[in-house]
């Protein structure tokens, strides 16, 4: 007989716990106040507006560095999340496993398309290629209107390697 499907609450709890552990470990993500919405395996990063994020007090506009950091955080977390997903679903994810180690940014290029307005911003990353060592990610950021991006970026990342001393 086929195994009965897992109750939906159990699945949701497992996924949400893994995500909040992944995100909660990084002080800089907490400092900027970035959170992640999850629908299935798709993540949307949210940057709630705060005065400390302002780079141009006259306009006012969000600091270009904050925009870049927000897109980079979205890329790194989306990448980690994608690598972690299979282990998470097969139940092979152990508590403090190496799976929570972050990819390292090799390079990151941001297009600033509009100034960041003093309101919440959102971002979603698409993993264009994910190999054993390198990954390429494209990420889009918007505010009120999904079609009107305020910034987009492409980055290359070095994936965490399995520890050689692993027994």
């Amino acid at each position, binding site marked *: 007989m086929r195994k009965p499907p897992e109750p939906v609450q159990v699945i949701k709890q497992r996924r949400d716990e893994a995500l909040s552990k992944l995100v909660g470990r990084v*002080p*800089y993500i907490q*400092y900027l106040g970035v959170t992640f919405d999850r629908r299935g395996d798709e993540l949307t990063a949210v940057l709630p507006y705060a005065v400390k994020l302002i780079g141009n007090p006259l306009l006012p506009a969000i*600091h270009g*560095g904050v925009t870049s950091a927000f897109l980079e955080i979205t890329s790194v977390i989306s990448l980690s999340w994608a690598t972690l997903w299979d282990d998470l679903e097969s139940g092979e994810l152990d508590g403090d496993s190496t799976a929570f180690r*972050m990819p*390292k940014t090799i390079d*990151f290029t*941001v*297009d600033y398309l509009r100034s960041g307005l003093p309101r919440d911003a959102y971002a979603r990353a698409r993993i264009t290629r994910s190999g054993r060592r390198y990954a390429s990610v494209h990420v889009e950021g918007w505010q009120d209107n999904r079609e009107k991006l305020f910034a987009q970026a492409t980055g290359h990342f070095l994936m965490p390697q399995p520890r050689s001393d692993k027994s």
Partner: protein
Amino acid sequence: MSDKVNIARQFMEAIPHSRDLGMVLTAIENGVATITMPYDERLIGDPETGVVHGGAVSALMDSCCGAAVMSHPSNPGATATIDLRIDYMRSATPGQALSTTATCYHITRNVAFVRATAVDEDTDNPVAMATGTFTIEGQRR
């Protein structure tokens, strides 16, 4: 300290995000600017090692490039980033301040071209390098 550095420093302190990260402008002249940022546990990107997040490095680099453009002898009124690429060459050493020097090496009526290097205490081995283009918004008289 020259008046120019003083004014630029006040300008920097008027930027909420730069002030929040403790950025200090230490030199600015003829399209070249230097900004330092102290190590801060809030900026950690890798909890296993305590290494600062790349995003914090880009905030520093972006500020510094903008300051370099503003200090160019052609006196641009204001500037905004069009594009900024950052190469992360190595992890910054935890506990050490970062310092970035940016040079606005070419400027036209509409666009400024900038290069920047970020170092920690090991100044011979850059942590990151950046190249960017910036808009020119009017001229100051």
